[in-house]
Every structure is written in structure tokens, then in C-alpha cells.
């Protein structure tokens, strides 16, 4: 799937983490297939949701796109440049345009730096402002994310989780990036605070025409914020479609099972909800199943699923599925 109008075009992205053995002579005895051939694109100004259960490679995908992990193979085209082959200074310059919001608002801020220093660090790193300008910009950004500008001299531990996450958002915004990868930005927050942060992200998106890759496991939150949604299972994307299409007409059996697990906030409807409970455990990414990754737990699995890896096909306009059993 290629699309010339996309801001970000990920093609067949692969990230294996080697497993090493031996104390003196280290040799590779295997690999964790964290991301194994992921392709999707993101258009300017949209939000693509990336969902899947824990350990399926969502975060690794996000970090590999930003080159925090170097890809094993595949390509990441961002504004027409391939990030995977980019190195050193060139890549450092490119980082101005893509930023990340991290999952854990406690671990993602340096406890020994003031909030002001944290937010202005990107500006100073890229030489975009002197101390004085950076200070002004920090005030602006704090106001923008809904924090009191007087808090610039405080330390992260003096803030609540939601406030810290706002600091993380301010840091990501300070370089005025076009793409922000949100790596489960709300999973560590209380439900009421989640809504605040999501609303903030949406407001900022409108204001600055931001593009988000929104990684999460909360299906209803993803439905709320995304324009398109990709579903991941064990290192591969199994389904990718427009939000409403995906939630109303899921084609892949994994997506169907996933969506059937979402409770409906209406007692009558909830009683009629049919849960599709998957059998077994998620296989280890060290030895993923042959053919289709999902076949070991799939109710529809057939002979072909064990032998041939299903193509990621466009079964309907802009609705992609990787399954042999979908017509």
C-alpha cells in the first residue's frame, strides 16, 4: 500500500531484537520478532490509532518509526525522506519535525530538571532559541497545555500525573513538529484525567494541524480520537481501516474478538452483547507461528493459514485485512 499524499509512509517495517547467549563469546541464539512487516500510512492532520494487546509491538513500532530503535529492515518515509537509512546530524535535524509523548509521566521527565528546563531543552538542543527566548516560549507552552506559567521553576515530582503528562505534551510541542507519536499517553492516568488529556490533544491538533499516531489499548478512547485505526497482533497489523468502518464492520477474526470485549454502557444492550472469547495464550514473539500469526487462536483457521502468510490486502476501498478467510 503506497500513497503519495501521505506524511508518513511505513513499508514492511521489521524490528527484531537479538537474544544473546554466552559470557565471553557472545552469539545470537534467537530473536524477538517484535515488529514483523508492518505497513501503513498517515496523512497530514489525521490521527491513526494503533491498538493491540500488551506486548504485540505497538510501542516498538512507534519507537522504530522515530528511529529510537534502528529498524532491522523496511522503510519509513517521512516527508519524502527515508528515516531508516538516515544517520547522525541529518537524522538529528529531522527529529525536529517528529516528536513523541511517552506513556509513563513519571519516568519520562528528568527528576532533577525543572519543568522549564525540560520544556526548553528541545529548543536549546536545536539552537532555536537563546535562554531568554526559550524562557518566554516555556511560558507560552505551559499556558497552552493548561498549566500555570509560574510553575516553570518547579520540579516534576511536584505535579500530579495528569499535569506531568501536560508537561510531556508541552515538551513535544516546543519544536512545532508535524508528527507526534503518542505512545499510550493516557494509559497511566485516571479516567477523568484521561479525558482532559485527550481533549487537550484534540484541541492542539486543530490549532496546529498536528498529525498523530495514537498508540493505545483502550478501544473506546481510540474510537473517539482516531480517523483511521490499525489493529496489531504479535508484530503484524491484521486490519487497517477508517474508524467507523473498522468498529462497525470488523473483518479480521482478531478484530472481531477484540471489539466484542468492549463493554457497552447500556444495560440492555450489554446483556445482549455476544463475547467472542479467544482460546489460549498469545504465542511468544521469539517463535511466532508459521503462516498467519493468529492461526493458533483463530476460530476460522484452516490448512492454508499454517503454510502461507496472508497478504495485507485491500478488500474494500481503504479497508485492509491480512486474513485468508476474508473474501
Amino acid at each position, binding site marked *: 500500500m503506497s500513497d503519495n499524499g501521505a506524511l508518513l509512509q511505513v513499508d514492511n517495517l521489521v524490528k527484531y531484537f537479538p537474544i544473546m547467549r554466552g559470557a565471553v563469546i557472545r552469539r545470537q541464539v534467537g530473536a524477538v520478532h517484535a515488529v514483523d512487516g508492518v505497513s501503513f500510512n498517515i496523512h497530514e492532520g489525521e490521527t491513526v490509532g494503533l491498538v493491540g494487546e500488551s506486548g504485540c509491538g505497538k510501542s516498538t513500532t512507534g*519507537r522504530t518509526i*522515530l528511529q*529510537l530503535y534502528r529498524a532491522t529492515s523496511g522503510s519509513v518515509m517521512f516527508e519524502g525522506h527515508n528515516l531508516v537509512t538516515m544517520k547522525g546530524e541529518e537524522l*538529528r*535535524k529531522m*527529529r*525536529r519535525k517528529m*516528536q*513523541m509523548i*511517552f*506513556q*509513563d509521566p513519571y*519516568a*519520562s*521527565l*528528568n*527528576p*532533577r*530538571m*525543572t519543568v522549564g528546563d525540560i520544556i526548553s*531543552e*528541545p529548543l536549546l*538542543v*536545536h539552537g532555536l532559541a537563546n535562554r531568554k527566548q526559550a524562557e518566554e*516560549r516555556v*511560558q*507560552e*507552552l505551559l*499556558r*497552552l*497545555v*493548561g*498549566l*500555570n*506559567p*509560574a510553575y*516553570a*521553576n518547579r*520540579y516534576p*515530582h511536584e505535579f500530579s500525573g495528569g499535569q506531568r503528562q501536560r508537561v*510531556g505534551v508541552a*515538551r513535544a510541542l516546543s*519544536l*512545532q513538529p508535524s508528527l507526534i507519536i503518542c505512545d499510550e499517553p493516557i494509559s497511566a492516568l485516571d479516567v477523568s484525567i484521561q479525558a*482532559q488529556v485527550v*481533549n*487537550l490533544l484534540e*484541541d492542539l491538533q486543530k*490549532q*496546529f494541524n498536528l498529525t498523530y499516531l495514537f498508540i493505545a489499548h483502550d478501544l473506546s478512547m481510540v474510537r473517539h480520537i482516531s480517523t483511521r485505526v490499525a489493529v496489531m497482533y504479535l508484530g503484524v497489523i491484521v486490519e487497517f481501516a477508517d474508524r467507523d468502518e473498522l468498529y462497525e464492520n470488523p473483518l479480521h477474526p482478531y478484530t472481531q474478538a477484540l471489539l466484542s470485549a468492549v463493554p457497552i454502557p447500556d444495560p440492555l444492550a450489554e446483556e445482549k452483547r455476544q463475547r467472542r472469547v479467544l482460546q489460549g495464550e498469545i504465542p511468544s514473539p521469539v517463535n511466532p507461528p508459521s503462516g498467519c500469526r493468529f492461526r493458533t487462536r483463530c476460530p476460522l483457521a484452516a490448512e492454508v493459514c499454517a503454510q502461507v502468510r496472508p497478504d495485507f490486502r485491500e478488500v474494500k476501498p481503504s479497508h485492509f485485512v491480512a486474513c485468508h478467510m476474508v473474501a
Partner: protein
Amino acid sequence: MSSALTPQSPSQVQAVAPVAVRKLKSESQWSLAWRRLRRHKLAMFGLFTLILIVFMSISADWLAPYPYDEIDLGKAYAPLMSPGGDGLPAHILGTDKLGRDILSRLMYAGRISLTVALATTILTMLVGTIMGAVAGSFGGWVDNILMRFADLMLTLPDLPILLILSSSLRQNQALTEFLGSNASVIIIIIILVVFGWMGVSRLVRGSVLTLRSQEFIQATQALGGSRARVIFSHLVPNSIAPIIVAATLGFGAVIISESALSFLGFGVMPPVPTWGNMLNEARNSPLEYLFTQALSPGFMIFLTVLSINFLGDGLRDALDPRLKL
């Protein structure tokens, strides 16, 4: 774009806490640390004592009643508070076996002992921190080479090597000429640093390894921070607690090492006094004089090390913004 940076949606406006905007210019991080340090009573005691000892040593030329090398064999082993000769000041702490005034020697000795300890500690921490932080943050073969080198240095028996090195370095004409009159002091500092950085580098490496996987380090990489920035403005500041503890413990150990070297005759050469070699000269004195001979330099070492430890304790806490003080 900055003109567009005003909150427009109601959700943002609500989120701003209705706290009165306090003074925007608040104090710097250093003045904050100083304020926190001042609340630590023992640290302030340590700081005060240290300043006193340093002042005493620096102004020995004016304050000391006698020159450190004035020998008066007729007054050997004078007891405490014994009067000086005609119109000369009293020997408050008595004299040693050559009749030299102990108080004066203590004051002069502080110069060498403190200089050696301070310079060695600072250099050791610097080398150890850089080695450890580089090893920990690069990982892989860089880590392997640096840490195996540290292991190698640790397996060497340091005392024999210290002796050989200090005597052979001292005989090196070019080196002694280059270093001038303080040759023996500088040589000791160099040797103690070369054999002292490994412990710190291991501590720092360990702390860097646990920090390295934290998200704020990845955040710095993601925003385009160089490796040097990651190491020096994120990894090292967060490893400051073990570094300070190692430094305060190391400071005392250096004074002791210097005295051990002097004891064996390879340290600072007499007649220049250090607390270490004064302690060792006391070894030969008759039992009844041991009190003044040994305890006075011993007490100075004890007081200095204790003060440094208190100060280090306070510093470690004052520099950690997470602690409520």
C-alpha cells in the same frame, strides 16, 4: 506561529488552576540547594569546621608560632603547654623528638594533606565518572574494554606498585624538573588518581545502566539530544548521589593512603610535614609522649574526614529536588 499560541477552547481555560501567579523569577537551582543545605545542621557543622581547618592551614605563615622546620634539640618531647624560651611563644601542643613545635607543624601539614586529598578526590571523581558514564551509556564493546581495564587495574596489588612508581618517578630528572618543587606532592596525586578511579567508575556505570532505559533518556534522544548531552545533563546529574558518597568516603581514604605512603618513606619527604608523616614519626616516640605525638595529627585527620562526611551527606540530600527538606 507564536501569535496563535493562545488557548481558545474552553477546556483549556478551565484547566488552568486559579492559583495566583507567584513571582515568576524564582531562585536558581544552586541557591535552592544552598537553602536546603543550610537546614542540614550536621552539614553546616562540617562546612564550618572545614572552613576553619582550611583557613588555619592557609594562614599558617602568619598564625603558626614557629616555622615548621625549626629544630631545638634541647627541647625534644616537650609536654603540652610548655613555655617557650626567652620571649618565645609557648608550645601549646608540645614538641616532637627534634624539638619542633607540633601545633605549627599541624597547621603547615594541613596544606599538603588537604591539597593532596582534595585534588585527588576531585580528579578521581572526574575520571571515574567519565569512564563509568561512557561505559554504561555506550554499552557493547566500549563498555567491555573500559570495564575489563578497570578490572585489570583492580587486580594489580596497589601498594607495591605505588612504591615502585613513586620512587622511580621521583628519580626521573625530567619529570621532577618539570613539576618543580612540589614534585613529590604531584606525583602522589597522580598515582592515587591512577589507582583510585575504578570504584567510582563502577558505581557510576551501575547507576547509568539503570537510568539508561528510563523514558526520559529516550525522550532526550527523541528530541535530538546528542550523546554528550544525554550523558552530561541527564545521566551524570541523576547519578550524583553515589558519586558524592564515594567522594566523601574517598577523601578520608586518600588522607590515609598518603600517610601510608609517607610511612614507608615514599610519600611527602620530611621535613615537609603532612598529617600522615607526622603520625608516622610518632611511631618511634616513647610511650608517655604518644598522646601528643600521635593523637594531634590523628585528631586532625578524624575531624577533617568527619566534617567531609557530614557535608557530603547534606550535599547529597540538598541536591536531590525530590526530597522534602
